[in-house]
């Protein structure tokens, strides 16, 4: 497809207060298509997603893998599907709040919802649509006993400010781009950086691997081919990281902090605290409106549950169409809902900018 036609997400300033019709939690394929179905009914939407880009699991886990069961697209990659959805919803001007999670919801006196994000953003909306798939992406943690007690003080899964590590002894764990990039960036800031990876092969960009090996050869940082074994020190303050190496045996690397980069996995996250009924970490809905146990909160896509549910992108798309019809009645309680087709309705075609 033509790259020039792909719409870039309109990113809102974090920490602001916004008022809209619908807030969609999750910007994966189903969350994106919800913008379209809502938009056809004149329902404006804001989207919140923990990732920095739209696309959800498709964009994060398999951007280049082919998908074969999207109607009319015999084969499409995760990224291409995302790009096409972004193009399709562009006429409705969705507003994105990326890199943040929907942390809490509260009902207002007006009967609306205030959704607060981890970035302090508040979105006030009449309806909430949860399209969070398998949950929100969170860092994978090394399987080390008691690691939670060190988190936030001396064990980290991201770097917010490099200066926080100035003069410290760091263990950086992992073999991908994040681990190598941060090892290279922090070696000039920290007192000492030791990169720990379980094998002498790296999935990072070859240029980064070469730079890392040069830095090790020049004595600017250390590389340890070993498995992480234990965290030493009185929690939450780390004093060392125990490792086991086939060549050199067990040892403790002195460390004030450990940064672990093993990629992301999905957890249900704060949605679990929204006060909705849950069924084995999924949100039960009816199959007429896809509404949850709380009126005017809907759940579509992989995160919902009903008898016969199939976890397919296709099913999620279908669910958004029915959800939008029900959402309309909350947003426009006095209006008559007329069902129209995009092929024949001038009104819909005007909304899409094609008539």
């Amino acid at each position, binding site marked *: 497809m033509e790259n020039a036609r792909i719409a870039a997400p309109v990113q809102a300033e974090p920490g602001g207060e916004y008022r809209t019709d619908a807030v969609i939690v999750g910007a994966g394929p189903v969350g994106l298509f919800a913008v379209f179905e809502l938009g056809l009914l004149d329902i404006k939407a804001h989207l919140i997603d923990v990732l920095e880009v739209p696309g959800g*699991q498709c964009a994060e*886990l*398999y951007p280049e*893998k082919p998908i074969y069961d999207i109607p009319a697209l015999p084969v499409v990659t995760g990224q291409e599907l995302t790009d096409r959805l972004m193009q399709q919803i562009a006429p409705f001007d969705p507003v994105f709040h990326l890199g943040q999670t929907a942390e809490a919801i509260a009902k207002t006196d007006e009967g609306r919802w205030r959704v607060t994000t981890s970035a302090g953003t508040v979105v006030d909306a009449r309806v909430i649509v949860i399209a969070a798939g*398998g*949950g929100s992406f969170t860092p*994978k*943690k*090394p*399987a080390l006993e008691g690691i939670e007690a060190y988190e936030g003080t001396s064990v980290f899964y991201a770097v917010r400010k490099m200066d926080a590590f100035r003069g410290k002894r760091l263990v950086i764990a*992992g*073999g*991908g781009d994040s681990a190598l990039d941060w090892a290279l960036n922090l070696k000039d800031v920290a007192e000492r950086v030791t990169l720990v*990876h*379980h*094998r002498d*092969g790296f*999935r990072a960009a070859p240029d980064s691997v070469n730079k890392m090996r040069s830095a090790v050869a020049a004595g600017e940082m250390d590389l340890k081919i070993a*498995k992480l074994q234990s965290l030493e020190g009185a929690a939450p303050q780390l004093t060392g990281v125990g490792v086991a190496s086939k060549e050199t045996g067990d040892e403790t690397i002195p460390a004030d902090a450990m940064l672990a980069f*093993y*990629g992301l*996995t*999905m*957890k*249900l996250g704060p949605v679990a605290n929204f006060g909705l009924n849950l069924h084995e*970490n999924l949100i039960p809905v009816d199959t007429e409106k896809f509404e949850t146990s709380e009126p005017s909160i809907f759940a579509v896509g992989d995160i919902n549950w009903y008898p016969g549910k199939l976890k397919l992108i296709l099913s999620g798309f279908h669910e958004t169409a029915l959800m939008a019809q029900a959402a309309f009645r909350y947003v426009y309680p006095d209006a008559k809902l007329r069902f129209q087709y995009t092929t024949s309705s001038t009104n819909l075609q005007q909304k899409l900018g094609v008539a």
Partner: protein
Amino acid sequence: MKIRVTDQTGKEHELEGIEGWRVMEIIRDWGLPIKAECGGACSCATCHVYVDEDWMDRLVPATDEELEMLDTAPAVEDNSRLSCQILMSEALDGLHVTLAPGSEPD
């Protein structure tokens, strides 16, 4: 053909293997707790298993793509594999695997 699967609590299960299915799909189809987040695309490492040492040499070796995904799994051992990359066949009748940390659903 059968496979034996030891779950995260140490309980062993004997499952009917199906020719051409991936071991991850068999484990999931039998209702054992396996996250398999990406659905078999070799993109998440949440179907990580330890293969019984007796069986390691009988498997098709891991591709670079699988090794790189295994880098993102916690507690990788020499006998670590992604169960979505092991294709079931008569030659694997009796295969024994153990679900590794990080493979459990939330």
